[in-house]
């Protein structure tokens, strides 16, 4: 007997007992309970007669360096991170949108160098931003952007590089991040990435 049939039987039993109460009992309060039982039973039976679908959680994806062969693979991972763990999409959109709370990132990979992107993610206060929320005169404002490499988001360097790869791909740019830059876990990190220390001097490249 499937679960649905079991639940249907329970529903029918509830409705039946409600009907019995209405037929046989005269105490008003009990009759109301019988009436309620019928209504609830019918509701359950109706819900059981529509398509039954449970929503299963998708398989949890892990960043596994061994499976990354090409920059496109990185971009695919970066896409997932952008929209989930990285929380980028909580504010940013790709393409114009009413609900955007932060700058639109469409074409960002073409406008900005990868070094600048990396710096924006890891040192958001390093370069003074314009508060895009205000109309009229641009106003200098501390960045609302959180540190992506620190808690609570805390992306690893590999993950940040993948996100950059994704942003470049989404802008129709060739991906300039290479698979070789990824750190293999367990090994000591390679020489610190130059860009991460290059200080707040990166400038947007106009395209």
């Amino acid at each position, binding site marked *: 007997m499937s679960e649905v049939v079991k639940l249907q039987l329970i529903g029918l039993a509830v409705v039946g007992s409600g009907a019995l109460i209405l037929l046989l009992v005269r105490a008003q309060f009990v009759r109301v309970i019988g009436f309620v039982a019928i209504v609830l039973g019918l509701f359950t039976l109706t819900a059981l007669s529509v398509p039954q679908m449970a929503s299963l959680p998708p398989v949890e994806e892990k960043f596994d360096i061994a499976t990354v062969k090409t920059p496109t693979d990185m971009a695919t991972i970066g896409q997932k991170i*952008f929209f*989930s763990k990285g929380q980028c999409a909580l504010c940013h959109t790709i393409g114009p949108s009413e*609900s955007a709370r932060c700058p639109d990132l469409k074409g960002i990979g073409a406008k900005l160098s990868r070094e600048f992107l990396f710096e924006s993610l890891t040192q958001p206060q390093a370069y003074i931003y314009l508060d895009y929320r205000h109309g009229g005169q641009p106003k200098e404002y501390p960045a609302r952007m959180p540190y992506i490499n620190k808690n609570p988001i805390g992306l690893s360097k590999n993950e940040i590089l993948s996100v950059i790869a994704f942003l470049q791909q989404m802008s129709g740019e060739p991906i300039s991040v290479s698979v070789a830059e990824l750190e293999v876990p367990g090994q000591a990190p390679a020489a610190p990435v130059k860009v991460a220390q290059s200080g707040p001097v990166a400038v947007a490249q106009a395209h």
Partner: protein
Amino acid sequence: MGGSLLKPVILIGIVYAILKFVVPNIPGSAPLPASLIFLYLMLTTSGIVIFATLSGESKDAFWNPIQRFMTGENIGGLQVLRYGVLLLFPLMVGWQTYSSTATSDAPPSENRTIHPAPPGEYTGLSNPVPKTPDTIQQGKGFYAAFCSPCHGGNFDGKGPAARGFNPPPANFSDPTTIAMLQESYLFWRIKKGGVGLPIEGMPWKSAMPRWEVELPDEWIWKIIMGEYDGAHQAPRTWE
């Protein structure tokens, strides 16, 4: 007596006849599934009951004949009919029970969600390819090469290769398909294909290829533009 009872019965009969025989014969229509007919009949019945019980008099006019009929008092020649009904009701309940416990002849019904929710990483994308007559034309070319065998040269889902597939290929000229979706949704569906659907989309039945193994993203974006243009639809936008 029958007057006030006869009317509701006739009304339900008329509604049923319209749903069963008239609506399917309107041009462009099709027979209604049993579930829908049942729903409309339920609504009609509850309407009748509500209206009949609005006041004391109308309720009595509605109910008294039923009660008289059921108790069999002073109904004269209808006594036979009464026994018939009293016999028929348990038999019908029995028949229903039998047919619901017996193994069904009909295969399990299908309730595929046609447009399930896309994975989060696709909802925020926008088309990176500029929309020019040139790119649209390219998109139409790709469409003709890769998509039209199933979705049809007229974007109506009636391509030569479509006939064996269930669910049938989407009809893009239908305003309830791509016109209700964003470009990013199509990008997901084309890129990941039928096997990329979540469980409510029944991925095991879809013949849609996973185009990411054959086409670059840029082509897919162009196909999307060509598809909307060719089907005379516009993507859903939010700004």
